[in-house]
C-alpha cells in the first residue's frame, strides 16, 4: 500500500479459486483518487447503458453479454502497479475504448431485429468483420459501421478469459475443425449458436489472414445472406501486400466495395468526410511514431498493453472516423512527453528491453504488464503495433482522389496482423531483427499461437536467426482464445523458467511468479 512504484506485492491481491481480486490497489492519495474517479466514470458509462430497456433485454438474450459484468476488472488488470502518467495514459485509452464499445453495443441492439428492431436505423448499418480495416467506411459519415464480432468475441475474451470457450465448443460440435485459430472459430460459433444480433443493410467481410478466418466468414455469410437477407461483399485484399503488381487489383477491390455499399444503402461516397478522416489517421500515425521514438531511448513511455490495445482499436476499428480518438492521442502524447522529460519509469527496475512478436494471447492481454512488474522486462513494442506509417493524401484534388483509393487499399492490405503474418519472409522475420536493433532490445518474446499455421512454419527460422545474432529468444506458446489448452500460469511458467535457468535471475516481485488466477475472469 504505497505511492511508490513497485512497493506493493501485486500477487497478494489474488485469491485462490476466485473470479475477482480481494481489493483494489492503494496507490497513494493522488493516484488512488484519480483511479477512483475513473472507476466512477466507468460505472456511470455502464449505468447509462443499462438505463435503456433494450440493452437490458439484450443482456438476457445474448450469452456473451454476461462478460460485460467484468468491465471494471479489465481496467484493473491493465492498470496493475501503474502510477502517475502511466496510470493516466492507461485510463485515457481504456475508458475511451469502453465508451466506444458501449456505443457499439447500443447501436447493435437498436437495429437488432430481435431487440430494438429500428428498421430505419438498421438500413443505415454496414456490418464489418472484427478483424478488418474500416478504411472503406471513411467516406460514409451518415452510415453506421458496426462489427458484431468485436463485442461478442474479441472484447469478451479481454474481459473474461473463458468467454469464447462455449462458442468454440459449439463450432466443433457442428463438425468444424478443432485445429484452426480459435478466434474465427468462436465467431463462427456465435453465428451457429444463433447468438449474433441481426441487422444491417449489407455487410463487408475481409479475407483476413488465414484458413480459420475464411472458414468463419463462410459460415457467417451463409446465415447473413441466405437466412437474414443481408447481402455480403467479400473484400479480398492481396496477401503479397509489398509487391507493386498487386496494388492495382487491391485498389479495384476498394472501388468495388464502395460501389457495393452505395448500391445497398443508397448513400453516396463523401470525399470531404474521407479527407477529414485521412487527416486524423495521419495525426494518429504521427503520435504513434513519437511514442515509438521515445521507446527507443532508456525512458520508454507508451508501451506494453498501453500501446498494443490502443493501436489495435485506433488504427483498425476507428481509422480516423471518430474525433474523440484524436483528442485522446493528443492527451496521451502530452502525458508521455511530461514523463519523458522527468525521466520517469513505470516500474522500479528495468532489467531487459524486449520486442514482443507474433500474435498475442487474448485471454492474457495483461501479460505485458506482468512482464514488467514481475521480471522488469519492458515490452517496448509488439508485432501488432508495428503497422503502416505511410502518410495518406489529405487534399481534395482529382489526382488525390485516385491516390486515396490506393491509400485505402494499402491500409486494408496492411491491417493489423495480416501486415506481418502475410506478405513474405521480410515483413515477419527480417524486420523483427531490424526492430531489435532500432529499439536496442536484448530480448525477443515470441508468442507462438499454436493454431496459427502462418507463424508456426517459421519457428526454426526465428531460432536460427536469434542464435546468429546472439538475441535471447523466449517462446511463449498459447492458444489465443482458449485458456483450457494453455492456462495463464502455463504462459507465465515459460517466462519464469527462462528467466531462472538462462538469465539466472530472481523476480522483482516474487508474489507474481505463480498466481492463482485459473478461475479468474
Amino acid at each position, binding site marked *: 500500500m504505497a505511492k511508490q512504484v513497485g512497493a506493493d506485492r501485486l500477487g497478494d491481491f489474488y485469491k485462490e479459486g*476466485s*473470479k*475477482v*481480486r*480481494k*481489493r*483494489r490497489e*492503494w496507490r497513494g492519495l493522488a493516484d*488512488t483518487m484519480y483511479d*477512483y474517479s475513473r*472507476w*466512477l466514470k466507468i*460505472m456511470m458509462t455502464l449505468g447509462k447503458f443499462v438505463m435503456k430497456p433494450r440493452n437490458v433485454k439484450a*443482456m*438476457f*438474450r445474448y*450469452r456473451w453479454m*454476461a462478460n460485460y*459484468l*467484468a468491465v*471494471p*476488472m479489465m481496467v*484493473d488488470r491493465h492498470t496493475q502497479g501503474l502510477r502517475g502518467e502511466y496510470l493516466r495514459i492507461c485510463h485515457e485509452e481504456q475508458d475511451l475504448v469502453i465508451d466506444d464499445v458501449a456505443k457499439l453495443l447500443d447501436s447493435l441492439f437498436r437495429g437488432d431485429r430481435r431487440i430494438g428492431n429500428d428498421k430505419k436505423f438498421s438500413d443505415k448499418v454496414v456490418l464489418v468483420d472484427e478483424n478488418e480495416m474500416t478504411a472503406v467506411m471513411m467516406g460514409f459519415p451518415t452510415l453506421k459501421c458496426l462489427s458484431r464480432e468485436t463485442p461478442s468475441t474479441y472484447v469478451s475474451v479481454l474481459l473474461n478469459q473463458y468467454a469464447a470457450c462455449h462458442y468454440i465448443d*459449439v463450432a466443433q460440435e*457442428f*463438425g468444424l475443425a478443432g485445429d484452426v485459430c480459435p478466434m474465427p472459430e468462436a465467431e463462427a460459433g456465435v453465428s*451457429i*449458436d*444463433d*447468438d449474433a444480433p441481426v441487422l444491417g443493410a449489407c455487410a463487408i467481410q475481409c479475407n483476413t489472414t488465414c484458413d480459420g478466418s475464411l472458414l468463419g466468414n463462410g*459460415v457467417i455469410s*451463409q446465415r447473413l445472406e441466405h437466412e437474414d437477407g443481408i447481402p455480403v461483399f467479400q473484400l479480398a485484399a492481396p496477401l503479397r501486400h509489398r509487391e507493386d503488381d498487386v496494388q492495382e487489383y487491391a485498389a479495384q477491390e476498394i472501388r468495388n466495395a464502395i460501389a457495393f455499399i452505395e448500391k445497398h444503402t443508397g448513400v453516396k461516397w463523401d470525399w470531404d468526410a474521407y479527407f477529414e478522416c485521412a487527416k486524423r489517421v495521419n495525426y494518429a500515425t504521427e503520435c504513434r511514431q513519437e511514442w515509438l521514438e521515445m521507446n527507443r531511448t532508456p525512458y520508454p513511455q507508451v508501451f506494453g498493453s498501453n500501446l498494443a490495445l490502443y493501436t489495435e482499436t485506433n488504427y483498425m476499428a476507428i481509422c480516423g472516423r471518430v474525433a474523440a480518438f484524436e483528442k485522446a492521442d493528443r492527451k496521451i502524447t502530452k502525458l508521455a512527453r511530461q514523463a519523458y522529460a522527468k525521466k520517469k519509469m513505470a516500474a522500479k527496475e528495468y532489467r531487459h528491453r524486449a520486442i514482443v512478436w507474433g500474435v498475442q494471447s487474448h485471454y492474457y492481454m495483461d501479460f505485458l504488464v506482468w512482464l514488467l512488474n514481475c521480471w522488469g522486462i519492458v515490452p517496448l513494442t509488439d508485432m501488432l503495433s508495428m503497422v503502416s506509417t505511410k502518410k495518406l493524401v489529405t487534399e481534395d484534388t482529382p489526382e488525390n482522389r485516385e491516390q486515396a483509393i490506393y491509400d485505402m487499399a494499402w491500409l486494408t492490405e496492411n491491417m493489423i496482423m495480416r501486415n506481418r503474418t502475410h506478405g513474405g519472409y521480410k515483413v515477419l522475420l527480417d524486420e523483427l531483427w531490424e526492430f531489435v536493433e532500432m529499439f536496442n532490445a536484448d530480448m525477443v518474446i515470441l508468442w507462438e499461437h499454436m493454431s496459427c499455421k502462418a507463424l508456426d512454419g517459421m519457428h526454426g527460422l526465428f531460432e536460427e536467426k536469434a542464435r546468429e545474432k546472439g538475441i535471447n529468444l523466449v517462446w511463449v506458446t498459447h492458444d489465443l482464445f482458449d485458456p483450457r489448452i494453455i492456462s495463464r500460469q502455463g504462459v507465465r511458467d515459460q517466462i519464469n523458467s527462462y528467466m531462472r535457468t538462462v538469465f539466472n535471475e530472481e523476480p522483482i516481485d516474487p508474489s507474481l511468479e505463480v498466481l492463482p488466477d485459473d478461475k479468474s*475472469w
Partner: protein
Amino acid sequence: MMTFLHILKVIAIVIAALFALTFTVYIFNLDMKLTAAIEPWLLKHYDKIDRDQHL
C-alpha cells in the same frame, strides 16, 4: 441564512456519505464481487433459451 447553512450542511453530509459508500465499494472491489455472484445465474438463464442452432 440559517436555512441556507442548513441546506449546505445536508448537501455536504449527503456528498460525504455517498463518497464513503462508493469508495468502500471501490477499494474492497465489492462491485466485482457482486457481479461475479450474478454471473452463474445468467449462464443458467442462457442455457434455457431456445435457439435455432445450425451451420
